[in-house]
């Protein structure tokens, strides 16, 4: 008798291991695992036991060698994924990948981040790592993996959340919420694993233990740094693409500095329109505007959410001026710049 169970574990080491052992205790032996599925067949209750280990820090060749070694020790092994990816032909894309190298094609270490090890119970404890140094190294890398997944997701959530400030969108908010929840789901096992690392470290002060060398520490940082760069590029790309719907322009040599209540843009040439959304409370607000026009046309408008035009200027020359805006009730204003072959820039600040 076989059965298929659909499950995903955020707690991919300990949580998954515990569940597999519970299944084995209930008389279900793992025979196959897919991205989100586990196939079991009947066995004697308690006949097998399982261990799950994170191996994605190693190259594929190394993890294969390790897998073969475990097999030669008489264990049965399975590769298991952490990432749930989308398939486009032979090229696989994982939405929250760790590095460009792993976004390539199958076969490879893609979606083989974990090894599940099965042992026939013989009364002896089943531990893959029994040495203090070794266990510490394992928990360290596992901990790092959890924090990396959690950190990536939380960073994405933050980026999406921040993007709604000047590009309000329900989808961004929903996305941010989803990423936030996923991030926290990985943060929990991460914290648990970091406690284990701390406990083992305390033990290491009296027992035999070798601290990892500086070189190893530096080498360990490389994939994280690479991952961070890729993530930043992906986020920037996503923001850029979604921003393109809000703005529509082509520019040459553009430099944009946009923060808080400042919007500074300069360029060699700008065609099209750019917008920025600003939420202001009731009262009188002052917009301080500086325009530099070397050539071409630049129009600027400030409008309220209901279409109230607070300011409109066309063909602005090089100038510096202030615009007073009276707002009756909290309003979402749109600052819009239309340019035609405009060379120069603008600086807008509001209070």
């Amino acid at each position, binding site marked *: 008798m076989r059965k298929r169970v659909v499950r995903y574990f955020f707690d991919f080491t300990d949580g998954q291991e515990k569940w597999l052992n519970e299944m084995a205790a209930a008389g279900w032996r793992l025979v196959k695992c897919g991205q989100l599925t586990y196939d079991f067949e009947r066995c004697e209750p308690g006949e097998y036991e399982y261990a799950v*280990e994170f191996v994605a820090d190693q190259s594929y060749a190394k993890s294969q060698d*390790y897998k*073969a*070694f*475990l097999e*030669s*020790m*008489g*264990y049965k092994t399975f590769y298991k994924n952490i990432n749930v990816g989308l398939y486009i032909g032979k090229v696989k894309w994982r939405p929250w990948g760790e590095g460009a190298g792993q976004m390539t094609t199958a076969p490879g270490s893609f979606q083989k981040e974990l090894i599940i*090890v099965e042992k026939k119970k013989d009364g*002896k*404890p089943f*531990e*893959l*790592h*029994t*040495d203090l*140094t*070794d*266990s510490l*190294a*394992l928990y360290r890398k596992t901990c790092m993996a959890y924090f990396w997944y959690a950190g990536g997701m939380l960073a994405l959530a933050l980026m999406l959340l921040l993007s709604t400030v000047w590009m309000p969108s329900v989808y961004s908010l929903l996305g941010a919420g989803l990423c936030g929840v996923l991030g926290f789901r990985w943060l929990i096992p991460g914290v648990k694993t970091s406690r284990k690392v701390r406990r083992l470290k305390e033990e290491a002060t009296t027992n*035999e233990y*070798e601290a990892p*060398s500086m070189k190893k520490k530096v080498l360990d940082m490389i994939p994280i740094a690479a991952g961070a760069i890729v993530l930043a590029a992906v986020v920037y790309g996503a923001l850029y693409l979604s921003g393109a719907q809000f703005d529509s322009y082509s520019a040459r040599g553009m430099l944009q500095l946009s923060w808080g209540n400042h919007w500074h843009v300069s360029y060699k040439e700008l065609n099209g329109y750019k917008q920025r959304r600003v939420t202001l409370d009731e009262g009188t607000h002052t917009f301080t505007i500086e325009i530099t026009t070397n050539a071409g046309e630049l129009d600027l408008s400030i409008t309220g959410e209901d279409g109230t035009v607070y300011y409109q200027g066309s063909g602005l020359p090089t100038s510096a001026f202030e615009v007073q805006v009276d707002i009756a009730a909290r309003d979402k204003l749109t600052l819009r710049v239309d340019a035609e072959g405009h060379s120069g820039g603008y600086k807008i600040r509001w209070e």
Partner: protein
Amino acid sequence: MRDNTAGGALTETTFLVLLSTYTPNHGYGIMQFIERVTNGRVILGAGTLYGAINALLKKKWIAPVENIEPGSNKKEYVITDLGKQMAQKELNRLSELYGLASRIIGGEPL
């Protein structure tokens, strides 16, 4: 499994794996050997053993044995001359420590 930098001591895992390869031995054999000679006090996890074997191979304290039996997927390892020197050094260190501890714990004045 680097040397303990302070005293040049080997970890127990390292030393036991070295001892188990005085005659060519494969992974599973090493695990069984260590369990047997320590009367079950030390049972190495497969992951730890894998790490230890690779570290020793890298240091050239053990070497892989060319497979005599064709078709066998079990790699065998044997201690090298360098490995034997390191084992001798460790034995000397342990003897010294053993003597010292015996005298002090036995109540003998230094």
